[in-house]
């Protein structure tokens, strides 16, 4: 299992377009991927579910923990990390 803790810097947090991109990226991989809002210390939810990702209520500057488990777990985690680090393509 691969795990990473990442800070979301986007001004709307994990909502609207950033949330959609996050889920679309996760859905490209066969691994089971879970995510939780570390700052709010909630539960893990399915990272491929837009509704559940929205329920995390991740705001700007909060940290998320992402866990991936499966054949492509490393590349899935890398892709999600670079998406968040690149601020969802908005610089």
């Amino acid at each position, binding site marked *: 299992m691969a795990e990473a803790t990442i800070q979301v810097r986007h*001004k709307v947090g994990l*909502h609207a377009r950033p949330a*959609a991109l996050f889920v679309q990226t996760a859905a490209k991989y066969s691994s089971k991927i879970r995510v939780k809002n570390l700052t709010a210390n909630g539960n893990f939810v399915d990272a*491929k579910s*837009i*509704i559940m990702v*929205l329920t995390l*209520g991740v705001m700007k500057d909060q940290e998320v923990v992402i866990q991936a488990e499966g054949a492509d777990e490393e590349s899935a985690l890398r892709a999600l990390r670079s998406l968040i680090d690149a601020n969802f393509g908005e610089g």
Partner: protein
Amino acid sequence: MTEKKFQGIPASDGIAIGPVFCYIPAQLTIPVCAAGTVEEEMMRFSAAREQARLELQGLYKAIETRAGREEASIFEAHQEMLYDPALAAKVQELVEIGQTAEGALVKSTEELAGLLSGMGDELFAARALDVKDVGRRVLRILLGLPDTALSAVTEPSVIVAEDLTPSDTASLDPALTLGFITAQGGLTSHSAILARTLGLPAIVGMGEGLLGNISNVTMVVMDGRSGEMIVEPGPETVAGYQELKLQRESHLQILKAAAGVEACTANGRRVEVAANVGEAASARDALEYGAEGIGLLRTEFLYLEDVQAPSEEKQFRIYREIFEVMCGHPVIVRTLDIGGDKPPSYLPFPAEMNPFLGWRAIRISLEEPALFKTQLRAILRAATGHQVRIMFPMVSDLDELRRAREIVETVQRDLERECIQFAANVPVGIMVETPAAALLVDVLAEASDFFSLGTNDLTQYTMAVDRGNAKVSGLFQPLHPAVLRLIKQTIEAGHSKGKWVGMCGELAGMTKAIPILLGLGLDEFSMNPRAIPEAKALIGKLTDDRAREIAHQAMAFGTALEIENFMKRSLESL
């Protein structure tokens, strides 16, 4: 079926003759019956989900062509929710314990929407509505019912509905809409305003029996000027209305041809006739109809179309576009005027009992200085080289006005320090739309460079009546003597302090009001662009003396009805 006539409230001028499209949001009830096998129920769910995906794709394409990608993106988000693995897992779980696909779907979407709406944040609550909307679509397909949304209109039709919300009309194709008829609503309800903006005929307040009366009707004639609806018209009726329609259209063409003429009274006094505008496109319309400026530029459309507040750059671009279209004509920009009745998702709106008496307009701007400053920066920057004025909505107190002006000054200093180009001498004024402001014009003149009467809100607050409530909207009378006295008081007090007084409420464009307003000395009439040609023609027929005499006589009556009857007689004698 034989010809039958019904009377409603005329809300937007024009005649339409055509087929009826009854818009009835279906009541979706789940039939009580035994579930099939788990496989059967899940197959039905999957098939309905696929059908829903096709519908959403179609909607996306239709809205993309009509209004652009940004508008259409909501239907893309709906497709993502439709295929959400959490939704599928919940449905599967419930079907496995013996529920039907319908029952499992309703319970699952309610549960997921509940998670989102329970987060105590407007942004997420809006997504909860999306989840419910998606669930409703799939359920409707499971029940074998057709899509009755307005986007399902396929031939040019008269749209008949109980009421139309802003989201209903978003899915409406103006090219397929001949007119609106609604059971609810008044002159200033959403559908009425939209109809006037689009130049479509509309009748509102037809009463509760409307949809029952029209359920099997194939053909209808509507006259948005008289408020008459005729169902199943005979050939003679149709021919008569076709003739009337042609007559009115050629009359309007003549008026439009005269639009280039400056507005002045019969004795040669210049009066400004301007347009109320809600977006860049209608600024062009305004010029075409002969507007000599924009007396009210509403900026709400910028704030309600997205999940985040519009950036300074976006606002700057749009304001500049409008100022350039108006090339040299004056434009009055009203700062943000929203409230709890149509809250944007990014502002922390409290639950309010009376949103019209609550946190709205200037009250929001003063409490959200970052939002306010962004708008002021964009206006001041775009105003460079143009004739622009800034106007604050819903001011009721001198302190509010002083604080708002201080923020304008701060923004000007900031721009100066940052060496950014902006217009330095932009006049700053207020809308007079609360009785408090009307009574305090002489005091407010200390900090207001001009005044503009907003008669819709002024009437609502003076008469204490909710204009959207059909039960009481009869009391919404802009020509009520109480409202007229406040208007008179505002114009007189403004002039005594040497200030310009205009009007940007609906009243300014009504022929029955123009002679009175002219007689009271109003400096500017700002109205729906389509009302301009007729208003200019009417002003040209009146001398100042005659208008003063009409105003004087009208002010002596005790009820709005008496004033309206008097005005009808006065207009006939012109």
